[in-house]
């Protein structure tokens, strides 16, 4: 129950003034600029764009600054801003085959056309703190360069497709459902699940994926391919009557190749899980692909083992960190009247218990006399 009360305005204004001061920190330390956050905290910016579900690095950097580095708060700010934007249209589906790959690796084939491109990765670093970064110094040396090969880098799953060893993903142009327009409805088709996972909390999706690896809905995934790079976004413009490129965005795509022994309807073959996320966000993209595959048990005729990662209602209802935060944090807001009624109830129950005990005591004494 909610009752309007007044009286907190001064305290709230003062709290916000102090928040602004604390956000700035020690004024003798130079202030962070949006450009610094965008360029040097790129992976945080990417996470805020992915889970805020809005690709705009400057806005994500501003949100991180405003939120004092609390990424879920920053995602909240982006989601709130997003709702103020008119929707100008839908893009054509992006062509990840035409991606300008910064990174492209496969855990299933060593020698594959296009090669294994490591890109700017943390892999193979020793995870030892680098104290050179603590000292302000010269910019790093230019990274070595080699003449690139021309042409698109083909998808790994394409090679397996040729032998019929892996399920196909045939093209189709059904307009997909949109979570930002219609609330989540279950059962959710795959397109809706992918949208929910793409904007879901990285920690949650990671944990769900990890649970499948530990045996809760095991689907034995190999990373068939992981690629990170820029793709062009095209949109049909009604007033022009043709499609134009409206921008470039960086994406991370993960395709898993999963063991599948066949079912009543499908021959033994490899199956696929798919992850696609804004920015350089490979932990999230791999996690998304594993969870996507786990949620496909029904369409592939697998058994439901009761694993959380197979349960679409569980996964999709709890993946969104803004919904989760909203509901979780609302319990710290005033519930004075709610609590007052609980207090009354507990007092009444205690009174009744005490009265019954007293009555029983009295009747025992009477019986004894």
């Amino acid at each position, binding site marked *: 129950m909610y009752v309007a009360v007044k009286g907190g305005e001064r305290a709230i204004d003062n709290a916000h003034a102090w928040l602004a001061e604390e956000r700035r920190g020690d004024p003798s330390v130079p202030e962070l600029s949006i450009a610094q956050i965008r360029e040097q905290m790129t992976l945080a910016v990417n996470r805020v764009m992915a889970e805020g579900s809005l690709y705009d690095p400057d806005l994500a950097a501003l949100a991180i600054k405003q939120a004092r580095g609390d990424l879920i708060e920053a995602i909240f700010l982006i989601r709130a801003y997003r709702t103020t934007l008119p929707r100008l249209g839908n*893009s054509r589906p992006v062509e990840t*085959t035409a991606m300008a790959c910064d990174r492209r690796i496969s855990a299933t084939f060593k020698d594959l056309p296009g090669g294994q491109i490591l890109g700017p990765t943390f892999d193979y670093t020793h995870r030892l703190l680098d104290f050179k970064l603590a000292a302000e110094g010269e910019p790093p040396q230019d990274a070595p360069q080699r003449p690139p090969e021309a042409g698109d880098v083909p998808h790994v799953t394409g090679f397996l497709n040729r032998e019929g060893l892996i399920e196909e993903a045939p093209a189709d142009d059904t307009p997909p459902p949109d979570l930002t327009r219609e609330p989540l409805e279950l059962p959710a088709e795959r397109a809706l699940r992918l949208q929910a996972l793409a904007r879901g909390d990285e920690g949650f999706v990671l944990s769900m994926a990890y649970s499948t690896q530990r045996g809760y809905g095991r689907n034995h995934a190999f990373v068939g391919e992981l690629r990170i790079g820029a793709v062009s976004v095209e949109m049909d413009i009604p007033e022009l009557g043709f499609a134009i490129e409206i921008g470039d965005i960086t994406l991370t795509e993960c395709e898993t190749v999963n063991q599948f022994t066949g079912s009543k309807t499908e021959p033994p073959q490899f199956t696929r899980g798919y992850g696609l996320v804004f920015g350089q966000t490979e932990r999230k993209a791999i996690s998304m692909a594993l969870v996507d595959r786990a949620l496909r048990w029904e369409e592939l005729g697998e058994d439901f083992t009761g694993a959380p990662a197979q349960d679409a209602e569980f996964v999709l209802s709890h993946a969104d960190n803004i919904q989760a935060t909203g509901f979780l944090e609302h319990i710290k807001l005033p519930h004075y009247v709610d609590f007052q009624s609980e207090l009354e109830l507990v007092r009444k129950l205690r009174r009744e218990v005490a009265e019954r005990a007293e009555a029983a005591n009295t009747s025992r004494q009477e019986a004894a006399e």
Partner: protein
Amino acid sequence: MGLLAKAGPGRVAALLDDTCARPGFDWLRHPETGSVMVRGRTGGTGAPFNLGEMTVTRCALRLRCGTVGHAYIQGRSKPDAEAAALVDAMMQTDRATTLQAGVLDPLRAEADSARTSRAARAAATKVDFFTMVRGED
């Protein structure tokens, strides 16, 4: 229009102003920032799904001669959208050659050079596998 959409902040306006004086125009649609839902395909090739939105600014204008120019650019910069729509309109007039040389060619060169420099860095991180020769004889 793709080049104009992807150009860095202030880039189109700077090249345009270096190339020629801006002509007078009337707005058909004032610059407006909105979002476009970006779609992907399941498995890279399958059915489409909604991945998330991106910010886009659009506008439309008419030059005094009647030529209409449109812009849809990535991001939220209204001055950049205006400059892009002016270039789009003037590309349909007899100043097309001047603008091609003064605005579009430099933008293309910058985009190519940025893409090549990233691709060259990526190529340098390509793994060259080699097998150690086993001494079996």
